[in-house]
């Protein structure tokens, strides 16, 4: 009996040792190929078809070109045409370590990788547990910035996101890092994004090949640098020219009148905020839409469902089943994107009036939020901002007062019991 018990106490230790040994030595960090794109290399994911999938040789060519152009997570390479600073990248890349003067290196892996993933694909080990999901940098789409809708964020935009974090999400503030460290991380995010966009561009180029190309991309400087890399890198270097010009809020504004005008615009046909943010501004209008990242997965999923339930042949079904396996590892379960609840006073892209101006003027890239520029005059945008900023406050001026109570039916469950208390 005693023997059995002492044996029992050893077993967990043995099991742990075995479990640790089971996964073998850790291989050096490597970038993952964008497998969802390798199977469906199209801009429009509802046109996904089995004959578009890149062959293993084509996938290998993309991996090889990317290795040549961008190196590895431990040893990033930047071609001069990428417009990146190698010294900053070195500080952010590689395993966490201290250099000879005691300066911390490997910042991305220390601070970012568990959510954003080693490849910047937003598929770090923590990602599935977060809502919203961490950003996937690879499509090169960023939401919170001072530039026009499709333009890249400026350098200060990304620095601001790192310093302030993103309220209402899991993105924390990194204000405790030194400015040099923050700048190094911003450079590394750009590097991962340029790498990811290059990968997408390369994969989509296979469809454009002619028959005499025999299924291989050209590996000339002219193609890889001039045609693929430079246009992607240029969007980052020209971002500063695309900053939205914000006219000053009209002087001597009567705030109450401005809020009232903003309210009319909010509910009116011109700005039409009500359609998505809802009559209560709780974000309960159009609530079954997806952002661009999730939308692609939803489209693929619908397509694969169609193959499973339709009259596709066995080969096509097999392809669909294999694609599902890729999705299981390389995509997170799509979630709808709720329009922002404007009663909470939490603004992901920043709470300064100018941040709200950028959001309304240009919309939010990657999200359904459309641009109001051109159809709503600048002074009207200011009225909407004043109205939106008044929303989190109750009629008594207190923050957090939930005016939606007024529109709920009196008999709603929960409401009565709250009042009884």
């Amino acid at each position, binding site marked *: 009996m005693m023997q059995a018990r002492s044996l029992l106490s050893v077993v967990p230790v043995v099991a742990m040792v075995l479990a640790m040994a089971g*996964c073998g030595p850790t291989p050096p960090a490597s970038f993952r190929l964008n497998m969802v794109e390798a199977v469906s290399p199209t801009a429009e994911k509802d046109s996904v078809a089995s004959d578009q999938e890149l062959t293993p040789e084509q996938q290998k060519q993309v991996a090889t070109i990317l290795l040549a152009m961008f190196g590895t997570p431990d040893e990033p390479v930047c071609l001069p045409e990428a417009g990146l600073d190698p010294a900053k990248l070195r500080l952010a890349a590689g395993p966490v370590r201290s250099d000879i003067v005691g300066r911390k290196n490997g910042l991305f892996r220390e601070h970012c990788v568990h959510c954003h993933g080693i490849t910047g694909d937003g598929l770090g080990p923590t990602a599935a547990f977060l809502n919203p999901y961490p950003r996937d940098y690879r499509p090169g789409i960023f939401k919170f910035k001072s530039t026009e809708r499709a333009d890249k964020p400026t350098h200060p935009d990304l620095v601001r996101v790192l310093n302030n974090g993103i309220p209402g999400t899991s993105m924390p503030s990194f204000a405790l890092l030194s400015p040099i460290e923050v700048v190094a991380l911003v450079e590394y995010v750009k590097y991962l994004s340029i790498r990811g966009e290059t990968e997408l561009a390369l994969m989509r180029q296979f469809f454009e090949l002619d028959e005499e190309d025999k299924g291989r991309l050209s590996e000339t400087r002219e193609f890889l640098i001039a045609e693929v890399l430079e246009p992607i890198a240029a969007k980052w270097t020209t971002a500063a020219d695309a900053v939205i010009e914000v006219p000053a809020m009209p002087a001597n504004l009567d705030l109450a009148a401005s809020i009232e005008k903003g309210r009319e615009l909010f509910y009116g046909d011109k700005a039409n905020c009500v359609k998505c943010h809802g009559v209560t501004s709780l974000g309960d209008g159009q609530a079954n839409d997806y952002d661009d990242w999730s939308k692609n997965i939803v489209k693929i999923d619908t397509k694969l469902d169609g193959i499973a339930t339709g009259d596709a042949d066995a080969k096509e079904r097999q392809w669909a089943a294999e694609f599902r396996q890729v999705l299981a590892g390389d995509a997170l379960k799509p979630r709808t994107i709720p329009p922002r609840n404007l009663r909470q006073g939490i603004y992901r892209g920043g709470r300064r009036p100018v941040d709200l101006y950028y959001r309304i003027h240009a919309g939010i890239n990657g999200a359904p939020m459309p641009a109001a520029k051109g159809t709503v005059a600048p002074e009207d945008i200011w009225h909407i901002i004043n109205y939106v900023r008044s929303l989190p406050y109750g009629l008594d001026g207190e923050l957090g007062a939930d005016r939606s109570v007024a529109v709920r039916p009196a008999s709603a469950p929960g409401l009565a019991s709250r009042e009884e208390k």
Partner: protein
Amino acid sequence: MDASITRIIPLMVLAALAAGCGPGRVVGPVADAAAAATLRTALLSSEAGKAATESAPVGTGWATLKGRFLFAGTPVERTVLVVDKDMEFCSPHGMKLYDQSLRIDPSTKGLADVVLFLRKSTRVKEASPPSEPLVFDQKNCEFITPVFASRVGQPVDVRNSDMTGHNTNIATTPFNQSIPAQGSAIYKPASETGMPISVTCNIHPWMKAYAVFRKDGYVAVSSVDGSFELPDLPAGEPLEFQVWHPRAAAGLKLDRPDLKWNPKGRFQITLEPDVLKDIGTLEVPAAALSGS
């Protein structure tokens, strides 16, 4: 009691081991390190292959290509869309909206919305895009032209003839603009699309159209009777056209060996100067339109 626990433990250890490494993600091919090193050296040398290869013009004169797409199958009834918002504007007097992705003319079986565009050429007749805007309108919460084509640089006048607000979101472009009731906004496409891209309204999710923008403007969309005509094409050089339909979004595949029609939905033809070339009827079997 203890004995039974000891008996279960090996199983538990096995289960823990199996779970330990987690479900495997599908791993793609690994890069060829030696080839990558060689390529990197080539890319870093500023000399190699820098000369731009502007292709020399081939042939002279201009020609027109025309033809007609016919649906070779039994037309199925169009699906009624679920309309659940702004009913007074989107479904006045109980009006129904139908799926626009397969429009077949009931009398002639003409297949509308087939897109043809020239993949590349050495010459273009009209050097600059037209300055007059192309109107893209919406009414009763439906895009009036389900597929439209425009030349890069030509302004597109995105209109809203409804009494309710819309937003028009052209995928992969910078354009996602709120369009007030009875209002409009101008979009000037700055770059070429490959295959057509989707145009949606996020407020009314059933609304869907497609847009295609080409630099040279050599693009046609088949009309309601299935016919198309592409004028001013460069004659005397081999031309390759990409053909697309909303239900054949990966390329419309036809069995036409005479036109060297390939599995990517492309065909080839060389035109003679000042000739109106009619390639006649192109029959599209239902199976070719099985995609989304």
